[in-house]
């Protein structure tokens, strides 16, 4: 049986070669996104950002004298769908690249298909480290989970905080990853981790952990958990007389964070992908155009979608072709791309090495603090 399989493969590649040769005036890009279902708010944002980026690039004349044609498919936030529609995008629509998704699980599903067919995949917001481990055709424009730990360590050092305690949620890989990289970077930078404490998702009483942290008199406490527990930790820390800033990652972003914490989190900081309050002209221009088009403020997912399209256009320009093999090399060689989510360089594992945004909490609201370069 094995002998015969090469025939259809040759056939398919012959057709796709013919396809790219024939579609001379446009570059077909496939996008799979969660436009409906549970992740629809993220999926819609990322799709809008992507769509807007291609509109702008086309209005400016496109690349290689060709215009982009974006073919978007909805995966309904459902498992199984990403594989089906990405197969369709590649085999029927003959796209040269695939963009998507915001969810790591959906991206991990689609990635092997792109890898097999030698079609580059750029994901805007799948942060799980496993995504790009699928193969060399897969890359991303967001940073991976552990990176935020490094960012917060640098931020803490820049603030002059030399002694920091870490409180980790041992039930979340996300939290453990952030904590591990925070400790590594913080100690390498000359800081001292005075206490490493733990809790588990669902815990409500943190006074025992906080008491053992308090006696070490830290300058700040790094809590890379999710908003539910972080809010309670903050309240109890203040009651116990711990006045130092608390630091965290994008897991802090959640509706009930400030509702439960009240003003306990004032003066605290966390890392995120993007802030619409970033005053750089590039970001402000993006925000203005996005608001004019969609009548709402762009979030981090919209910004990442926008940058995924930008990076693709940039890579095609440098490669001078849409051939998958050469294109993947050009994408991987992305260096210093000025995106709205920061200056993006792809590292050897094709993960974006870029600056993160630090947000401050002031008077019970989020406020842009600064960018931190990797």
């Amino acid at each position: 049986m094995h002998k015969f399989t090469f025939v259809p493969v040759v056939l398919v590649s012959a057709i796709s070669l013919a396809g790219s040769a024939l579609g001379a005036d446009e570059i077909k890009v496939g996008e799979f996104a969660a436009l409906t279902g549970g992740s629809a708010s993220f999926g819609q944002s990322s799709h809008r950002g992507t769509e807007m980026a291609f509109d702008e690039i086309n209005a400016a004349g496109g690349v290689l004298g060709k215009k982009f044609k974006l073919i978007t498919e909805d995966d309904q936030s459902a498992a199984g769908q990403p594989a089906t529609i990405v197969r369709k995008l590649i085999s029927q629509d003959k796209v040269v690249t695939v963009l998507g998704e915001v969810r790591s699980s959906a991206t991990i599903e689609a990635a092997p298909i792109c890898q097999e067919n030698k079609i580059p995949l750029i994901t805007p917001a799948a942060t799980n480290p496993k995504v790009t481990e699928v193969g060399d055709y897969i890359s991303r424009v967001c940073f991976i989970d552990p990176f935020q730990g490094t960012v917060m360590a640098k931020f803490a050092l820049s603030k002059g905080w030399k002694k920091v305690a870490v409180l980790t949620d041992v039930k979340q890989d996300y939290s453990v990853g952030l904590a591990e990289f925070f400790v590594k970077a913080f100690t390498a930078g000359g800081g001292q981790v005075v206490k490493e404490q733990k809790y588990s998702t669902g815990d409500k009483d943190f006074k025992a952990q906080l008491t053992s942290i308090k006696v070490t008199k830290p300058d700040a406490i790094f809590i890379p958990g999710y908003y539910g527990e972080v809010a309670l930790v903050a309240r109890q820390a203040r009651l116990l007389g711990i006045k130092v800033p608390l630091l965290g990652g994008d897991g802090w972003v959640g509706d009930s964070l400030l509702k439960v914490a009240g003003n306990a989190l004032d003066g605290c900081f966390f890392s995120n992908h993007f802030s619409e309050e970033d005053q750089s002209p590039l970001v402000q221009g993006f925000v203005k155009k996005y608001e004019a088009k969609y009548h709402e403020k762009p979030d981090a997912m919209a910004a990442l979608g926008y940058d995924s399209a930008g990076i693709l256009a940039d890579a095609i320009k440098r490669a001078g072709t849409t051939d998958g093999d050469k294109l993947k090399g050009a994408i991987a060689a992305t260096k210093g791309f000025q995106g709205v989510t920061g200056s993006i360089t792809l590292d050897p594992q094709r993960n974006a090495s870029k600056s993160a945004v630090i947000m401050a909490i002031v008077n019970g609201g989020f406020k842009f603090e600064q960018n931190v370069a990797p």
Partner: protein
Amino acid sequence: MGDKLLELLQQVVNGLSQGSIYALIALGYTMVFGVLRFINFAHGDVYMLGAFVGFYLGPKTLKLFGDGPSYPGAAAVLLLSMALCAIIGIVIEKICYRPLRERPKLTVLITAIGVSLFLENGGQFVFGADPKSFPDVITDRALEIPASWGKISGLTITISQVLVFGVTLVLMFVLSHIVRKTKLGMAMRALSFNPVAAQLMGINVDVVISFTFGLGSALAGAAGILTSIQQPSIDPLMGINAGLKAFVAAVLGGIGNLQGAVLGGLLIGVLEAIVVGYVDPTYRDPIVFGVLILILLVKPTGLLGASEREKV
């Protein structure tokens, strides 16, 4: 006094406030067991319902006592939750346990697990599974300890911690007074001693059992409010862990013994704080449930429980 000692003292304070919650729930377990000889596993979920009573009715109740958090308002919320939980407890007993009273104890035990699952999943359906932010019924803050007390002024004791501990002790004394000095209490003890003889002596068994359930559930309701004051994030599954810990506390103190339940609750609370503070937080639950196994192996009657000879 050294820093180390101060830290230890602080952990004991933390443990006592958390342990008070376990103690309040354990009192309900132990009372029902004392009278009916069965473990009401839905008891932890009544505690959860107590917290939700405060969540839904708390803000309106507080308004009756002026704007914002106030002590009379908090007391009213506490009493309201206790009253509603008492009714819930009585209804649960009437609908689910009473028809099975003559059946083997195992049947009632399994029903209790069913009621517990019903309340947890029904709670997720009705209230939603996401954590809710509990309203501030009092303004919690750390108490000022005069600097003249020396090193001990470094200790942090919050108003809610004092409140939880105080309310628990008061309720324990009220409860033992009811059991020892009132007519209903005497009926409870008689029923516990010998149900058939008690009935022959003219004791209305149904009334006494309803009363027992009501009392125990009221305490669970109080625990629900007090815990939410300290940790203002509540969800429909909050009763599972607290209920299990309280069960361990009741067994540790000697199930059926009121003072034992409180002692057990406080000990478990302090043990947890010590393990989290000095050993490793991930060992907290294994150690607490290890205590349950150990006590059942070594002294099944618990610390304060009298050994009971099997009646022939």
